[in-house]
């Protein structure tokens, strides 16, 4: 929801919060939580995990507000914190099957392989479901670029990688998503997004 003109800027709210005004932090949470939660949902593919990641992100942001030096926009910094929170949850989930593997001697039902799962989802037009099949590194860049519509320069700052790396991840992520969705080639049309989001 756009703020009215009289609303304090993010940076003003950060300064107030660091000075001890907890209401200022509440305003930051309310202002940004939908966007941050949406990023987390698209990256994690699970609303409960996304809520956990969103909470973790805001708590981390609160703890580290004093370290926010304002060299980047607050939204860039907050996206960075949120992406790190998502990576934490993804790492945690990756380890869970391993624990069962080493603890159980019995034959395992490991569920469908990635390939099998891709087969199931292939052809779906549900982009959100297909995102889960895109490798994490590409998926994060893809969500920031094509769902959140952040400029590539900002994504580079969020992920702390060169802009060329961001572009490469986004492009490869788009191809992976197209494969997961069973999207075939369409006749290349003239570009529809002149000079947006790149530098």
């Amino acid at each position, binding site marked *: 929801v756009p703020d009215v003109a009289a609303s304090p800027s993010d940076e003003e709210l950060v300064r107030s919060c660091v000075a001890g005004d907890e209401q200022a932090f509440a305003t930051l949470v309310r202002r940004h939580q939908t966007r941050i939660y949406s990023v987390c949902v698209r990256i994690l593919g699970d609303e409960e995990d996304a809520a956990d990641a969103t909470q973790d992100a805001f*708590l981390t942001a609160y703890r580290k507000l004093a370290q926010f030096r304002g060299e980047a926009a607050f939204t860039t910094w907050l996206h960075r914190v949120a992406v790190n929170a998502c*990576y934490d949850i993804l790492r945690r989930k990756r380890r869970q099957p391993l624990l069962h593997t080493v603890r159980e001697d019995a034959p395992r039902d490991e569920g469908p392989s990635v390939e099998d799962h891709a087969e199931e989802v292939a052809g779906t037009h549900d982009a959100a479901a297909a995102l889960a099949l895109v490798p994490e590194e590409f998926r994060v860049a893809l969500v920031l670029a094509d769902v959140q519509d952040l400029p590539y320069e900002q994504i580079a700052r969020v992920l702390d990688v060169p802009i060329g790396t961001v572009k490469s991840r986004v492009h490869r992520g788009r191809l992976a998503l197209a494969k997961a969705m069973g999207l075939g080639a369409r006749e290349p049309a003239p570009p529809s997004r002149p000079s947006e989001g790149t530098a």
Partner: protein
Amino acid sequence: MNHPTSELIDFVDGALEPAARERVAAHVRSCPVCGPEVGRARAARDALRGLADVDPPPGLTESILDAVESGSGAAPRGRARTWSRWAAGAGVAAAILLGLAIALPQVRGSNGADTEAAGAESRSKDLSAATTVEVVAGDLGIDDLGALATGAAREAVDVGAPSPAYAAQDGVPVVDQVRAEPRVVDRALACLTTAFGTPDGTVIRLLEGTYEGTPAVLGVVVSGPGAGEPPDRAEVLVADRLDCSILVGHTVQF
């Protein structure tokens, strides 16, 4: 045929200068590789642009603000993702906000940035990986894990005078014996890795003892968020020494 691979994303996004756009367009029209690739990339991009923002669940704002107010750190929001929770002496007025939660194994994947972070900030100390196993006298319990974790936090960051939060966590377990044989150290590390996966960050202490009556191996791991940030997390990982399964894990944010 030379494919303009690095220019395809800018072509899809319409970000090329006119001359380059014409050149790439001519290639794409005639290339059996790049033509379909551009079509797929554009279709995927358009599909993602159709995704709307997702409204957070009711109560998330309050949950976040309650957690901030209570200083309970990254305690989860009530879902059964943790085994138990250790209240971190909430309300302790410390210069450093300390949050402590017992969570599922929260060791991180290897990330060189964490190592860089350990030396990046002037207030950070150099952390050394454990080369010994400390054998602990007596049976360990939940409070001992808290003491180990906060001790690690104090070790990781030069906080000057101990804050009240740290002082409240005195009573670190008594070490009975220190074993430096490589096979003992390797065995302890291997057991923790079997239970929790490869720890990310630095394993600054390894201990053996019993945890609530079960023979246990303990690892104290300090890590940071990466991206040049200083260490901000200490974890105590406890594995069953006999079958190397997980007993419990503690995390301290500092």
